[in-house]
């Protein structure tokens, strides 16, 4: 176990210092070991590499190495026109791609001074909430897999499929809908969609009950998640941890309610769930409640869906006036924001993409100190990140 690192991504050299060699230990202490979790590892949802230094099974230090999937969207965005960029940003958080499009399109609309018609806003809200359900529902199942229960993971995939079918039938794309247009939406909802959506929402609610029965009430699940990976609320905020991860630490902050008003959220009645513990269990519990809340919101939206056009009058070639705008939304994984700088061209001059998982994962070195290897997986699972959302 030498400290020679092959050329590639940089790992904190402090991790490799004073590693015990193959010499006999006179003391009962065992030498530290470096373990590479990833870049190919089932618990990392992609190509995250987590270099952990272990004393037995206890983590001494951890260093997440990211960038294996960095696609340079910020640079690419400078070479694309506004409508083209939605195709790129779809792929940031590929599980909730529709929700990624919303803040960008919203920002471009703000800069251009146009507003999508109410029906478009409501459909956008419905699809955003559906992406949220699809994303978080998968988490609810996969969290079981992270702690070793195989069955819930399949349930998660099974019911998410129904939501994806809904998204597909409305937008034509299961994963990358690219459905938003600056000023509205590409199409209206297909015939019969609303009824279909209602039945699916019922199934999702039932599925949530199943998760509650199988995992939340399970002693082993509680033993594995309670008190594991506690994020103090204040520290989490300073790290930029957002979304359900922060709300599980007792910080009552949801951009849908507290941010600048966007989409149809100001007209909805919903509860922001928080939990005071800040551990993995709390994160699971908050997400479970949020899924139910999202179902409630979708039903409200379906009930009150206004009639009207789905597209505002926009120029055929989109040129965005000079200006800067910061748009942020509450995405399934947390705060998603774009800082768009326009110089009056058909494409942005600079787009800063603030993705939720990037900050959520940046707390890992602090969070993983002193936990056991299995807890590493639990914690990573409960933070719930998507690699595309870290690497952009």
């Amino acid at each position: 176990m030498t400290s020679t690192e092959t050329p590639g991504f940089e790992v904190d050299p402090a991790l490799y210092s004073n590693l015990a060699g193959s010499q006999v230990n006179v003391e009962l202490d065992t030498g530290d070991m470096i373990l590479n979790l990833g870049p190919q590892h089932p618990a990392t949802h992609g190509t995250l590499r987590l270099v952990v230094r272990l004393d037995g099974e206890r983590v001494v230090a951890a260093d997440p190495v990211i960038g294996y999937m960095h696609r340079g969207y910020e640079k690419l965005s400078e070479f694309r026109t506004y409508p083209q960029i939605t195709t790129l940003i779809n792929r940031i958080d590929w599980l909730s791609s529709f929700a990624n499009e919303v803040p960008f399109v919203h920002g471009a609309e703000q800069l251009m001074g146009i507003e999508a018609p109410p029906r478009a806003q409501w459909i956008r809200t419905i699809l955003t909430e559906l992406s949220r359900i699809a994303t978080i529902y998968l988490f609810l199942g996969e969290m079981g897999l992270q702690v070793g229960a195989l069955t819930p993971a399949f349930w998660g995939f099974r019911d998410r499929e129904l939501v994806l079918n809904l998204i597909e039938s409305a937008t034509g794309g299961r994963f990358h809908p690219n459905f938003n247009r600056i000023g509205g939406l590409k199409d209206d909802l297909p015939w019969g969609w609303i009824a279909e959506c209602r039945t699916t929402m019922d199934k999702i609610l039932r599925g949530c009950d199943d998760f509650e029965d199988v995992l939340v009430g399970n002693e082993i699940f509680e033993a594995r998640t309670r008190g594991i990976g506690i994020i103090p609320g204040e520290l989490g905020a300073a790290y930029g941890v957002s979304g359900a991860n922060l709300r599980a630490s007792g910080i009552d902050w949801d951009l849908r309610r507290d941010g600048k008003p966007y989409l149809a959220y100001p007209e909805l009645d919903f509860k922001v769930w928080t939990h005071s513990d800040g551990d993995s269990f709390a994160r699971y519990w908050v997400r479970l409640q949020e899924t139910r809340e999202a179902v409630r919101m979708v039903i409200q939206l379906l009930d009150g869906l206004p009639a009207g056009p789905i597209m505002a009058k926009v120029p055929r070639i989109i040129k965005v006036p000079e200006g800067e705008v910061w748009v942020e939304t509450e995405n399934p994984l947390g705060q998603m924001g774009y800082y768009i700088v326009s110089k009056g061209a058909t494409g942005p001059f600079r787009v800063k993409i603030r993705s939720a998982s990037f900050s959520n994962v940046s707390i890992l070195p602090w969070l993983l100190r002193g936990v056991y290897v299995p807890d590493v997986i639990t914690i990573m699972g409960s933070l719930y990140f998507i690699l595309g959302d870290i690497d952009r």
Partner: protein
Amino acid sequence: MADETPDTPDTPDASADDAVTDASAVAVEEVPAIDPAVAALFERFEAALGDGVVDHADSFGTLVVRVKPDAWKRAAEVARADLDCDYLSFISGIDWMPAPKPAGDEGGDTSAPVQPDTMTFGVTGSDGRLQVFAHVQSTTRHWGVTIKTDVADPAPTVDSWVSVYPGADWHERECWEMYGVDFSGHPKIRHLYLPGEFEGNPLRKDFALLAREVKPWPGLVDVEPMPGDDTEEGDS
């Protein structure tokens, strides 16, 4: 530089109904009326930071403050202590220089969506081509502020925020490798996204995007007609 700083275009929502056919005509320059809430927030900020503030603006309801480089870290402390901005959203950089067009005007426009040739500096202006900016928010007061500062062009350096916001660590590493901005006081600045041996600062405007060099931008072709906009069918 303030004279050529384009202020926020005043585009009230009502104008959405107007069919705007030529978007370039929209950029009406007009001094914006600052939202009172934003103005109040700025007053708090200025009261705490004092003469560190260079300029400020209200950009679509978000306070943007430009501070002096030596007040950069103090701005973070002020934001955290006096503005209750406990939440770090991001830290990043921006290069205001227009991208060079290596192939020249004859060789086709390679830097596709045509950007202006002159250097302009956006909201609150800048002294040079490189700026660092960050957005911090309050989870309790639900407000946020974008803080900008100028950094020198050769050997850009600015104070690190890690001691104020621990989450600044990765953001500053990203900014360092993407823009070459050094953060003094950062515990260990090293590559984040890019391999260790990578050279250059990819997000600087003079860093060419290789894909565009190889295959030039074909221009806007085959524009999809918008729903309800069937006046101009056919090619553009």
